[in-house]
């Protein structure tokens, strides 16, 4: 880790308009939970809000956080100011990841615990399960999106398509996809903690190992891409 990169990345995350959107997503989710808990009183309300938070809000927060710490600098080439230093590019990747990860935990996973408690205060274990599942999935999401931001300037669009189509539609429609869907791995972990969370059936060991592999692999890939970062002229 490099404290200077941590600080600059945090400033990049919070100092721009993106920071506002990042805070807005969990805020909307919590407000939604409050409204639903007032209007309804059954399991369906809990299910749908938690699902929304888990399959949409969480990966969105991870995507925005990961692309905010790396995307703009890679896009406009100003990352050369950070890279033209005797600092390992893997350290730079890890430091940027740490900031994005922290944001995903606080603004992506933690709100799910809050939402759970708002909807059903009598089941704190269930709320915690959603939160921990989200933490595992968020860890992998953030690493994957960071790697995406290191290779393409269209990381936000591609990431969005990935979240909506692969994780959202295909992940629920086809049984085979669940083995390769990050959200499913998170649910598996959550289901292990609380039986109230529906699982997809890949087994918790597989889920944790897969999430760890994706995280470590993507992070290493990000560092390696930064090592090969190429400066292009306008010509």
């Amino acid at each position, binding site marked *: 880790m490099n404290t200077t990169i941590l600080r600059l990345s945090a400033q990049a995350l919070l100092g*721009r308009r993106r920071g506002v959107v990042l805070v807005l997503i969990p805020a909307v989710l919590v407000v939604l939970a409050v409204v639903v808990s007032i209007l309804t009183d059954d399991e369906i309300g809990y299910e749908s809000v938690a699902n929304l938070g888990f399959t949409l809000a969480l990966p969105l927060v991870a995507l925005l956080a990961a692309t905010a710490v790396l995307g703009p600098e890679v896009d406009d080439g100003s990352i050369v*100011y950070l890279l*033209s230093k005797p*600092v390992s590019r893997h350290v730079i990747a890890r430091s940027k990841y740490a900031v994005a990860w922290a944001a995903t935990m606080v603004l992506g996973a933690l709100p799910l615990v809050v939402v759970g408690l708002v909807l059903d205060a009598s089941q704190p274990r269930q709320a915690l399960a959603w939160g921990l599942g989200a933490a595992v999935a968020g860890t992998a999401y953030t690493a994957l999106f960071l790697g995406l931001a290191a290779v393409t300037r269209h990381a936000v669009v591609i990431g969005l398509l990935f979240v909506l189509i692969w994780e959202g539609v295909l992940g629920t429609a086809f049984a085979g996809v669940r083995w390769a869907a990050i959200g499913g791995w998170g649910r598996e972990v959550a289901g292990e903690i609380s039986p109230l969370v529906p699982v997809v059936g890949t087994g918790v060991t597989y889920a944790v190992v897969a999430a760890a592999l994706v995280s470590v692999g993507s992070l290493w890939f990000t560092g390696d891409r930064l090592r090969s*970062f*190429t*400066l292009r*002229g306008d*010509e």
Partner: protein
Amino acid sequence: MSVLTLDNASRWYGNVVAVNGISMSVRPGVTGLLGPNGAGKTTLIALMAGFLAPSAGTVTLDAEQVWRHTDVYRTIGLVPERELSFGYLTGRQFVRANAELHGLVEPGAATERALATVEMVEPAERRIGTYSKGMRQRVKLASALVHDPAVLLLDEPFNGVDPRQRLHLMTLLRQMGVEGRTVLFSSHILEEVEQVARQIEVVVSGRHAASGDFGQIRRLMTDRPVQYVVVCDDDRGLAGALIAEPSVVAVSLRRGGGVEVSVSDFGSFAVRLPVVARGHRIRILELTPTDESLESVFAYLVGG
């Protein structure tokens, strides 16, 4: 004292060759990298700074490969052409971050020293987003100087900088060359390069077109067949007189008045023209070079 060496370095993107087999050594002192826009100067600097892999050949700093070797940045300071996008930082914060990333023992003192060198101490508390082009350029230079590098690479440092700040930047670069640093900067303006650099490397269409001190390059660029249009009060008289001159290759009369002259040796033509005109009592009203654009000079250098 550090030497940056390119040995037959090439870089291509698919079918497009951006840098074509260039060999050169950049030594202590100021070197100017001169070439028209799109000649491959930025590509060349990216190769030198380790931000581009050569497709063939090698780029080394004191016999060490530059590509994928982050330790070279202890020796190299880079001022890219790219705009600073850290608009949310103040100048001081930005330079200080650079000092910290270099792992300097006293980043604060190094920051102040670098800011003082580029005369940016006073506006250093303002955000970079509020800076003028020249100020941003100087902050970029401060960030590249903060670790006191032996090698300094600058891509078009004078672009868009107002004349007063340009003079200041030029003085700085010359001073750094005198201090024994290896300084290389790119420009597409001959006069700019002449004022700062001792050694000039000319790049045209990705090829190394010429290399030498500024006197040699100036001569290369001026001693070439040049076209002039002379407007005077006796076109036929002047044409007749000029064709007798050894430095004149061809003379023709323009339809709307004026004489077109092809000159092989600009130096002696410049001396002879007024003498000839006075001798024949011809009054010269206008003398215009017709292909003085730098592009045509460059085209001539590569034999195009």
